[in-house]
Protein backbone atom coordinates (compact mmCIF):
# COMPACT_ATOMS: atom_id res chain seq x y z
CA UNK A 1 0.00 0.00 0.00
CA UNK A 2 1.34 3.42 -0.89
CA UNK A 3 1.43 6.05 1.85
CA UNK A 4 -0.09 9.10 0.18
CA UNK A 5 -0.67 11.43 3.10
CA UNK A 6 1.37 11.38 6.28
CA UNK A 7 1.37 13.55 9.42
CA UNK A 8 5.11 14.27 9.28
CA UNK A 9 6.18 13.71 5.70
CA UNK A 10 4.90 15.94 2.94
CA UNK A 11 2.28 14.76 0.48
CA UNK A 12 3.73 12.10 -1.76
CA UNK A 13 5.53 13.75 -4.66
CA UNK A 14 3.84 13.81 -8.01
CA UNK A 15 6.40 11.94 -10.07
CA UNK A 16 6.28 10.18 -13.38
CA UNK A 17 4.93 6.63 -13.38
CA UNK A 18 6.68 3.89 -15.27
CA UNK A 19 5.77 0.29 -15.98
CA UNK A 20 7.80 -2.77 -15.12
CA UNK A 21 7.05 -6.45 -15.64
CA UNK A 22 7.38 -8.90 -12.75
CA UNK A 23 7.12 -12.54 -13.86
CA UNK A 24 4.99 -11.48 -16.79
CA UNK A 25 2.70 -9.25 -14.73
CA UNK A 26 2.79 -5.55 -15.54
CA UNK A 27 2.91 -3.26 -12.52
CA UNK A 28 3.05 0.51 -12.19
CA UNK A 29 6.03 2.00 -10.41
CA UNK A 30 7.04 5.48 -9.36
CA UNK A 31 10.13 6.77 -11.12
CA UNK A 32 13.03 6.84 -8.64
CA UNK A 33 11.79 4.05 -6.40
CA UNK A 34 13.41 0.66 -5.89
CA UNK A 35 12.16 -2.48 -7.58
CA UNK A 36 11.42 -3.95 -4.15
CA UNK A 37 9.24 -0.98 -3.18
CA UNK A 38 7.28 -1.18 -6.43
CA UNK A 39 6.72 -4.88 -5.84
CA UNK A 40 5.59 -4.41 -2.25
CA UNK A 41 3.18 -1.71 -3.38
CA UNK A 42 1.74 -4.33 -5.74
CA UNK A 43 1.67 -6.90 -2.91
CA UNK A 44 4.38 -9.10 -4.42
CA UNK A 45 6.66 -10.31 -1.66
CA UNK A 46 8.67 -13.26 -3.00
CA UNK A 47 11.94 -12.33 -4.69
CA UNK A 48 13.66 -15.67 -5.07
CA UNK A 49 13.85 -19.30 -4.02
CA UNK A 50 17.04 -20.71 -2.49
CA UNK A 51 19.13 -23.20 -4.44
CA UNK A 52 19.24 -26.16 -2.04
CA UNK A 53 15.89 -26.17 -0.26
CA UNK A 54 13.86 -23.98 -2.62
CA UNK A 55 12.77 -21.75 0.24
CA UNK A 56 11.21 -18.38 -0.57
CA UNK A 57 13.01 -15.16 0.31
CA UNK A 58 11.88 -11.55 0.23
CA UNK A 59 13.00 -8.09 1.32
CA UNK A 60 14.84 -8.42 4.63
CA UNK A 61 17.44 -5.69 5.25
CA UNK A 62 16.30 -3.11 2.71
CA UNK A 63 19.72 -1.50 2.36
CA UNK A 64 21.69 -3.84 0.14
CA UNK A 65 23.51 -5.69 2.92
CA UNK A 66 21.86 -9.10 2.80
CA UNK A 67 21.01 -10.94 -0.40
CA UNK A 68 17.46 -12.03 0.23
CA UNK A 69 15.82 -9.73 -2.32
CA UNK A 70 18.00 -10.68 -5.29
CA UNK A 71 16.16 -11.28 -8.56
CA UNK A 72 16.84 -11.52 -12.27
CA UNK A 73 16.59 -8.03 -13.75
CA UNK A 74 16.72 -7.61 -17.53
CA UNK A 75 18.31 -11.05 -17.70
CA UNK A 76 20.96 -10.33 -15.07
CA UNK A 77 20.74 -12.57 -11.99
CA UNK A 78 21.56 -11.63 -8.37
CA UNK A 79 20.43 -8.02 -8.63
CA UNK A 80 19.61 -6.57 -5.21
CA UNK A 81 16.13 -5.21 -5.85
CA UNK A 82 16.02 -3.14 -2.66
CA UNK A 83 18.76 -0.83 -3.98
CA UNK A 84 18.09 -1.01 -7.70
CA UNK A 85 15.80 1.65 -9.11
CA UNK A 86 13.00 0.89 -11.53
CA UNK A 87 13.21 1.89 -15.17
CA UNK A 88 10.43 1.92 -17.72
CA UNK A 89 10.11 -1.41 -19.46
CA UNK A 90 12.31 -3.26 -16.96
CA UNK A 91 11.79 -7.02 -16.90
CA UNK A 92 12.04 -8.59 -13.44
CA UNK A 93 11.90 -12.32 -12.76
CA UNK A 94 11.82 -14.48 -9.64
CA UNK A 95 15.21 -16.11 -9.25
CA UNK A 96 15.56 -19.83 -8.62
CA UNK A 97 18.91 -20.78 -7.12
CA UNK A 98 22.02 -18.74 -7.77
CA UNK A 99 23.88 -17.50 -10.76
CA UNK A 100 26.67 -15.02 -10.18
CA UNK A 101 27.58 -12.01 -12.28
CA UNK A 102 31.24 -12.09 -13.23
CA UNK A 103 32.67 -8.98 -11.57
CA UNK A 104 36.23 -10.00 -12.49
CA UNK A 105 35.50 -9.12 -16.08
CA UNK A 106 33.82 -5.80 -15.36
Amino acid at each position, binding site marked *: *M*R*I*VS*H*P*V*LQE*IEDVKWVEITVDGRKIRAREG*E*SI*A*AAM*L*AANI*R*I*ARYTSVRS*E*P*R*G*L*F*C*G*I*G*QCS*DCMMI*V*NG*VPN*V*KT*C*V*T*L*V*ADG*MVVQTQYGTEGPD*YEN*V
Partner: protein
Amino acid sequence: MRTYDADVCIVGSGPAGLGAAIELAKHGLHALVVDSNLSAGGQLIKQTHKFFGPTAHRGGVRGMVIADELYAEALDSGVEVWLDSEVYSVSSEMQERMSIEVLRNARRSNSCDTLPIFRCAIKAKYLVIASGASEKPLMFPGWTLPGVMGAGAVQTVMNVERVLPGERFLIVGSGNVGLILAYQLLQAGAKISCVIDSAPTIGGYAVHAGKVQRAGVPLITRCTIVKALGDNQVKGGQIARLDENCQIIESSVETVDVDTICIAVGLKPYARLASLAGCKFGYFPQLGGWVPLHNDRMMTTVENVYVAGDVAGVEEAAIAEDEGRLAGLDIVLKLRPDDVCVRSRIHEVQARLWESRRGPFSSDKHQAKKEIIGHWHGNVAT
Protein backbone atom coordinates in the same frame (compact mmCIF):
# COMPACT_ATOMS: atom_id res chain seq x y z
CA MET B 1 42.55 0.61 -13.26
CA ARG B 2 42.02 4.35 -13.00
CA THR B 3 43.33 5.93 -9.83
CA TYR B 4 42.30 9.05 -7.96
CA ASP B 5 44.21 10.94 -5.30
CA ALA B 6 42.79 12.33 -2.08
CA ASP B 7 44.25 13.43 1.23
CA VAL B 8 41.68 11.41 3.12
CA CYS B 9 39.22 8.77 1.96
CA ILE B 10 36.10 8.49 4.08
CA VAL B 11 33.87 5.44 3.71
CA GLY B 12 30.26 6.20 4.53
CA SER B 13 28.23 9.39 4.22
CA GLY B 14 26.22 9.08 7.41
CA PRO B 15 26.68 11.54 10.29
CA ALA B 16 30.13 10.15 11.19
CA GLY B 17 31.53 10.22 7.66
CA LEU B 18 30.15 13.66 6.86
CA GLY B 19 31.29 14.98 10.27
CA ALA B 20 34.85 13.85 9.51
CA ALA B 21 34.77 15.15 5.94
CA ILE B 22 33.46 18.58 6.97
CA GLU B 23 36.29 19.10 9.48
CA LEU B 24 38.88 17.99 6.94
CA ALA B 25 37.57 20.13 4.11
CA LYS B 26 37.20 23.18 6.33
CA HIS B 27 40.93 22.86 7.04
CA GLY B 28 41.75 22.78 3.36
CA LEU B 29 42.19 19.06 2.86
CA HIS B 30 40.82 17.04 -0.03
CA ALA B 31 38.26 14.78 1.63
CA LEU B 32 36.69 12.16 -0.64
CA VAL B 33 33.59 10.44 0.73
CA VAL B 34 32.46 7.18 -0.86
CA ASP B 35 29.13 5.55 -0.13
CA SER B 36 27.46 2.54 -1.68
CA ASN B 37 24.02 4.11 -1.28
CA LEU B 38 22.26 6.28 -3.83
CA SER B 39 21.76 9.14 -1.40
CA ALA B 40 23.91 10.69 1.32
CA GLY B 41 23.05 10.77 5.00
CA GLY B 42 23.28 7.09 5.92
CA GLN B 43 20.36 5.85 7.99
CA LEU B 44 19.34 9.38 8.99
CA ILE B 45 17.30 9.67 5.80
CA LYS B 46 14.59 7.40 7.18
CA GLN B 47 14.38 8.91 10.66
CA THR B 48 11.23 11.01 10.55
CA HIS B 49 11.20 11.67 14.29
CA LYS B 50 12.79 14.52 16.21
CA PHE B 51 16.01 13.62 17.98
CA PHE B 52 16.58 14.17 21.68
CA GLY B 53 19.38 16.20 23.17
CA PRO B 54 20.54 19.78 23.48
CA THR B 55 20.16 22.17 20.55
CA ALA B 56 23.93 22.21 20.07
CA HIS B 57 23.64 18.49 19.41
CA ARG B 58 20.79 18.95 16.92
CA GLY B 59 18.17 18.02 19.53
CA GLY B 60 14.61 18.66 18.36
CA VAL B 61 15.52 18.23 14.70
CA ARG B 62 14.21 15.33 12.62
CA GLY B 63 16.86 12.84 11.50
CA MET B 64 16.06 13.26 7.81
CA VAL B 65 16.54 17.04 8.13
CA ILE B 66 19.91 16.51 9.84
CA ALA B 67 20.95 14.38 6.85
CA ASP B 68 20.13 17.23 4.46
CA GLU B 69 21.88 19.81 6.65
CA LEU B 70 25.07 17.77 6.99
CA TYR B 71 25.21 16.94 3.29
CA ALA B 72 24.72 20.59 2.34
CA GLU B 73 27.42 21.66 4.81
CA ALA B 74 29.79 19.04 3.40
CA LEU B 75 29.29 20.15 -0.19
CA ASP B 76 29.60 23.82 0.80
CA SER B 77 32.87 23.03 2.55
CA GLY B 78 34.30 21.45 -0.58
CA VAL B 79 33.92 17.78 0.30
CA GLU B 80 33.84 15.47 -2.72
CA VAL B 81 31.15 12.79 -2.47
CA TRP B 82 30.84 9.67 -4.59
CA LEU B 83 27.54 7.87 -4.23
CA ASP B 84 26.75 4.41 -5.61
CA SER B 85 30.40 3.57 -4.94
CA GLU B 86 31.14 0.42 -3.00
CA VAL B 87 34.54 -0.14 -1.38
CA TYR B 88 35.59 -3.76 -1.73
CA SER B 89 39.27 -3.69 -0.91
CA VAL B 90 41.84 -1.74 1.03
CA SER B 91 45.57 -2.33 0.99
CA SER B 92 48.70 -0.44 1.86
CA GLU B 93 51.13 -1.52 -0.86
CA MET B 94 53.12 1.63 -0.43
CA GLN B 95 54.41 2.79 2.93
CA GLU B 96 52.85 6.20 2.87
CA ARG B 97 49.58 5.64 1.06
CA MET B 98 46.66 3.29 1.07
CA SER B 99 44.86 2.01 -1.98
CA ILE B 100 41.09 1.84 -1.58
CA GLU B 101 39.40 0.00 -4.41
CA VAL B 102 35.89 0.97 -5.38
CA LEU B 103 33.17 -0.47 -7.60
CA ARG B 104 31.21 2.43 -9.06
CA ASN B 105 27.67 2.53 -10.42
CA ALA B 106 27.01 -1.06 -9.36
CA ARG B 107 23.46 -0.17 -8.43
CA ARG B 108 22.48 2.32 -11.11
CA SER B 109 24.05 0.38 -13.98
CA ASN B 110 21.19 -2.12 -13.73
CA SER B 111 18.59 0.53 -14.47
CA CYS B 112 20.54 3.03 -16.56
CA ASP B 113 22.57 2.20 -19.67
CA THR B 114 24.48 5.48 -19.53
CA LEU B 115 26.00 4.69 -16.13
CA PRO B 116 28.29 1.74 -16.73
CA ILE B 117 29.77 -0.20 -13.86
CA PHE B 118 33.54 0.19 -13.40
CA ARG B 119 36.33 -0.25 -10.88
CA CYS B 120 38.83 2.34 -9.71
CA ALA B 121 41.25 2.96 -6.87
CA ILE B 122 41.62 5.88 -4.47
CA LYS B 123 45.12 6.60 -3.20
CA ALA B 124 45.02 8.33 0.16
CA LYS B 125 47.27 8.65 3.15
CA TYR B 126 44.42 8.45 5.63
CA LEU B 127 41.28 6.32 5.76
CA VAL B 128 38.23 7.00 7.91
CA ILE B 129 35.86 4.03 8.10
CA ALA B 130 32.37 5.26 8.94
CA SER B 131 30.42 2.30 7.59
CA GLY B 132 27.77 2.26 10.31
CA ALA B 133 25.96 -0.78 11.60
CA SER B 134 23.84 -3.65 10.41
CA GLU B 135 20.76 -5.07 12.05
CA LYS B 136 21.08 -8.13 14.21
CA PRO B 137 18.89 -10.94 12.96
CA LEU B 138 16.83 -13.15 15.21
CA MET B 139 16.46 -16.80 14.28
CA PHE B 140 13.23 -18.69 14.92
CA PRO B 141 11.23 -21.14 12.82
CA GLY B 142 10.02 -19.25 9.76
CA TRP B 143 12.38 -16.29 10.19
CA THR B 144 13.44 -16.43 6.54
CA LEU B 145 9.88 -16.17 5.19
CA PRO B 146 9.05 -13.14 3.06
CA GLY B 147 7.26 -10.81 5.45
CA VAL B 148 9.84 -11.13 8.22
CA MET B 149 11.90 -7.96 7.94
CA GLY B 150 14.46 -5.94 9.80
CA ALA B 151 13.04 -2.86 11.50
CA GLY B 152 15.35 -0.72 9.38
CA ALA B 153 14.04 -2.29 6.19
CA VAL B 154 10.49 -1.42 7.17
CA GLN B 155 11.55 2.15 7.98
CA THR B 156 13.25 2.47 4.61
CA VAL B 157 10.34 1.32 2.47
CA MET B 158 7.85 3.18 4.65
CA ASN B 159 9.56 6.54 5.21
CA VAL B 160 11.76 6.85 2.13
CA GLU B 161 9.87 4.86 -0.49
CA ARG B 162 6.44 5.60 0.97
CA VAL B 163 5.22 2.02 0.75
CA LEU B 164 3.76 0.04 3.64
CA PRO B 165 5.18 -3.49 3.33
CA GLY B 166 2.14 -5.06 5.03
CA GLU B 167 -1.06 -4.27 6.87
CA ARG B 168 -0.79 -5.87 10.29
CA PHE B 169 2.51 -5.91 12.14
CA LEU B 170 4.17 -7.70 15.02
CA ILE B 171 7.29 -6.00 16.38
CA VAL B 172 9.91 -8.09 18.17
CA GLY B 173 12.07 -5.90 20.40
CA SER B 174 11.08 -2.97 22.59
CA GLY B 175 14.28 -0.94 22.39
CA ASN B 176 14.09 2.55 20.94
CA VAL B 177 14.22 1.22 17.38
CA GLY B 178 11.22 -1.06 17.95
CA LEU B 179 9.23 1.64 19.76
CA ILE B 180 9.97 4.35 17.20
CA LEU B 181 9.15 1.93 14.40
CA ALA B 182 5.81 1.17 16.06
CA TYR B 183 4.94 4.86 16.25
CA GLN B 184 6.02 5.50 12.68
CA LEU B 185 3.94 2.54 11.46
CA LEU B 186 0.89 4.03 13.19
CA GLN B 187 1.60 7.38 11.53
CA ALA B 188 1.70 5.62 8.18
CA GLY B 189 -1.67 4.00 8.79
CA ALA B 190 -0.64 0.46 9.70
CA LYS B 191 -2.16 -1.75 12.39
CA ILE B 192 0.10 -3.18 15.07
CA SER B 193 -0.79 -6.33 16.94
CA CYS B 194 1.78 -5.81 19.70
CA VAL B 195 5.39 -5.07 20.54
CA ILE B 196 7.03 -7.94 22.41
CA ASP B 197 10.31 -8.27 24.28
CA SER B 198 11.90 -11.23 26.02
CA ALA B 199 13.37 -8.96 28.70
CA PRO B 200 11.43 -8.27 31.90
CA THR B 201 11.34 -4.53 31.19
CA ILE B 202 10.84 -2.30 28.16
CA GLY B 203 14.18 -1.56 26.53
CA GLY B 204 13.65 1.94 25.13
CA TYR B 205 12.92 5.36 26.58
CA ALA B 206 9.72 5.75 28.58
CA VAL B 207 8.68 8.70 26.41
CA HIS B 208 8.68 6.51 23.26
CA ALA B 209 6.97 3.64 25.07
CA GLY B 210 4.29 6.01 26.36
CA LYS B 211 3.44 7.30 22.91
CA VAL B 212 2.94 3.78 21.59
CA GLN B 213 0.96 2.63 24.60
CA ARG B 214 -1.32 5.68 24.51
CA ALA B 215 -2.13 4.76 20.91
CA GLY B 216 -3.43 1.44 22.21
CA VAL B 217 -0.59 -0.85 21.19
CA PRO B 218 0.20 -3.49 23.83
CA LEU B 219 3.84 -3.67 24.91
CA ILE B 220 4.38 -7.17 26.27
CA THR B 221 7.54 -8.01 28.20
CA ARG B 222 8.80 -11.51 29.04
CA CYS B 223 7.34 -12.57 25.71
CA THR B 224 9.02 -14.15 22.71
CA ILE B 225 8.24 -15.14 19.16
CA VAL B 226 7.84 -18.90 18.75
CA LYS B 227 7.49 -19.06 14.98
CA ALA B 228 6.35 -17.28 11.88
CA LEU B 229 3.38 -18.98 10.23
CA GLY B 230 2.86 -19.39 6.49
CA ASP B 231 4.17 -21.52 3.63
CA ASN B 232 5.39 -18.96 1.13
CA GLN B 233 5.08 -15.77 3.16
CA VAL B 234 4.03 -14.64 6.61
CA LYS B 235 0.38 -15.38 7.38
CA GLY B 236 0.62 -15.01 11.13
CA GLY B 237 2.88 -15.41 14.12
CA GLN B 238 3.01 -17.39 17.32
CA ILE B 239 4.11 -15.72 20.52
CA ALA B 240 4.50 -17.02 24.05
CA ARG B 241 5.25 -15.81 27.57
CA LEU B 242 8.54 -16.64 29.25
CA ASP B 243 9.08 -17.80 32.80
CA GLU B 244 11.82 -16.50 35.13
CA ASN B 245 14.33 -18.85 33.49
CA CYS B 246 13.50 -17.49 30.04
CA GLN B 247 11.72 -20.73 29.09
CA ILE B 248 8.52 -20.71 27.05
CA ILE B 249 5.35 -21.28 29.08
CA GLU B 250 3.62 -23.78 26.78
CA SER B 251 0.12 -22.92 27.93
CA SER B 252 0.64 -19.30 26.93
CA VAL B 253 1.37 -19.87 23.23
CA GLU B 254 -1.01 -17.79 21.14
CA THR B 255 -1.40 -16.92 17.48
CA VAL B 256 -1.37 -13.30 16.35
CA ASP B 257 -3.05 -12.27 13.13
CA VAL B 258 -0.27 -10.42 11.32
CA ASP B 259 1.22 -10.41 7.83
CA THR B 260 4.53 -8.77 8.70
CA ILE B 261 6.99 -9.44 11.52
CA CYS B 262 9.61 -6.77 12.27
CA ILE B 263 12.86 -7.70 13.97
CA ALA B 264 14.15 -4.89 16.18
CA VAL B 265 16.67 -6.63 18.42
CA GLY B 266 19.59 -4.30 17.99
CA LEU B 267 22.46 -3.36 15.75
CA LYS B 268 26.05 -4.47 15.38
CA PRO B 269 29.04 -2.59 13.96
CA TYR B 270 29.37 -3.12 10.20
CA ALA B 271 33.12 -3.47 10.35
CA ARG B 272 34.18 -5.67 7.43
CA LEU B 273 36.44 -2.99 6.01
CA ALA B 274 38.21 -2.47 9.34
CA SER B 275 38.80 -6.20 9.44
CA LEU B 276 40.16 -6.11 5.89
CA ALA B 277 42.46 -3.26 6.86
CA GLY B 278 43.93 -5.42 9.64
CA CYS B 279 42.47 -3.56 12.63
CA LYS B 280 42.33 -5.40 15.94
CA PHE B 281 38.92 -5.94 17.51
CA GLY B 282 37.44 -6.42 20.96
CA TYR B 283 34.06 -7.84 21.99
CA PHE B 284 31.81 -5.27 23.67
CA PRO B 285 28.15 -6.35 23.83
CA GLN B 286 27.16 -2.92 25.23
CA LEU B 287 28.24 -1.44 21.86
CA GLY B 288 26.76 -4.16 19.65
CA GLY B 289 29.48 -6.81 19.60
CA TRP B 290 32.87 -6.86 17.88
CA VAL B 291 34.28 -3.34 17.75
CA PRO B 292 37.53 -2.18 16.14
CA LEU B 293 39.82 -1.02 18.94
CA HIS B 294 40.55 2.70 18.74
CA ASN B 295 42.17 5.43 20.79
CA ASP B 296 40.49 8.52 22.24
CA ARG B 297 40.81 10.22 18.84
CA MET B 298 39.30 7.32 16.87
CA MET B 299 42.48 5.89 15.32
CA THR B 300 42.49 2.09 15.09
CA THR B 301 45.42 -0.21 15.78
CA VAL B 302 46.48 0.39 12.15
CA GLU B 303 48.37 3.65 11.67
CA ASN B 304 46.32 6.26 9.79
CA VAL B 305 43.16 4.13 9.70
CA TYR B 306 40.29 5.62 11.71
CA VAL B 307 36.80 4.49 12.67
CA ALA B 308 33.88 6.72 13.64
CA GLY B 309 30.20 6.31 14.38
CA ASP B 310 28.32 3.04 14.80
CA VAL B 311 31.17 1.00 13.32
CA ALA B 312 33.18 2.07 16.38
CA GLY B 313 30.37 0.96 18.70
CA VAL B 314 26.63 1.45 18.20
CA GLU B 315 25.44 4.68 19.83
CA GLU B 316 23.47 7.77 18.83
CA ALA B 317 23.68 9.83 15.62
CA ALA B 318 24.92 12.92 17.46
CA ILE B 319 27.76 10.87 18.93
CA ALA B 320 28.57 9.46 15.51
CA GLU B 321 28.87 12.96 14.09
CA ASP B 322 31.19 14.07 16.87
CA GLU B 323 33.32 10.94 16.53
CA GLY B 324 33.67 11.75 12.85
CA ARG B 325 34.66 15.32 13.62
CA LEU B 326 37.19 14.05 16.13
CA ALA B 327 38.76 11.68 13.58
CA GLY B 328 38.92 14.48 11.02
CA LEU B 329 40.47 16.92 13.47
CA ASP B 330 43.09 14.40 14.58
CA ILE B 331 44.18 13.94 10.97
CA VAL B 332 44.40 17.73 10.56
CA LEU B 333 46.53 17.90 13.70
CA LYS B 334 48.90 15.25 12.39
CA LEU B 335 49.52 17.37 9.35
CA ARG B 336 49.76 20.58 11.39
CA PRO B 337 51.09 19.57 14.81
CA ASP B 338 51.54 23.16 15.92
CA ASP B 339 47.97 24.29 15.26
CA VAL B 340 46.69 25.22 18.73
CA CYS B 341 43.18 25.94 17.43
CA VAL B 342 42.80 22.39 16.15
CA ARG B 343 44.19 21.03 19.38
CA SER B 344 41.66 22.93 21.46
CA ARG B 345 38.82 21.91 19.11
CA ILE B 346 39.81 18.28 19.68
CA HIS B 347 39.55 18.71 23.43
CA GLU B 348 36.20 20.45 23.03
CA VAL B 349 34.73 17.62 20.93
CA GLN B 350 36.16 14.97 23.25
CA ALA B 351 34.60 16.66 26.25
CA ARG B 352 31.24 16.86 24.49
CA LEU B 353 31.40 13.16 23.59
CA TRP B 354 32.05 12.03 27.15
CA GLU B 355 29.38 14.41 28.39
CA SER B 356 26.78 12.91 26.04
CA ARG B 357 27.41 9.43 27.44
CA ARG B 358 26.61 10.49 30.99
CA GLY B 359 22.92 9.52 31.07
CA PRO B 360 21.66 6.35 32.77
CA PHE B 361 21.11 4.71 29.36
CA SER B 362 24.72 5.35 28.37
CA SER B 363 26.79 4.52 31.42
CA ASP B 364 27.57 1.00 30.16
CA LYS B 365 28.61 2.42 26.79
CA HIS B 366 30.77 5.01 28.51
CA GLN B 367 32.52 2.20 30.38
CA ALA B 368 32.95 0.09 27.23
CA LYS B 369 34.48 3.01 25.35
CA LYS B 370 36.97 3.53 28.15
CA GLU B 371 37.90 -0.16 27.95
CA ILE B 372 38.31 0.02 24.17
CA ILE B 373 40.77 2.87 24.55
CA GLY B 374 42.61 0.90 27.24
CA HIS B 375 42.84 -2.17 25.00
CA TRP B 376 44.06 -0.01 22.11
CA HIS B 377 46.98 1.19 24.22
CA GLY B 378 47.72 -2.39 25.23
CA ASN B 379 47.73 -3.55 21.61
CA VAL B 380 49.67 -0.70 20.09
CA ALA B 381 52.32 -0.77 22.81
CA THR B 382 53.06 -4.48 22.39
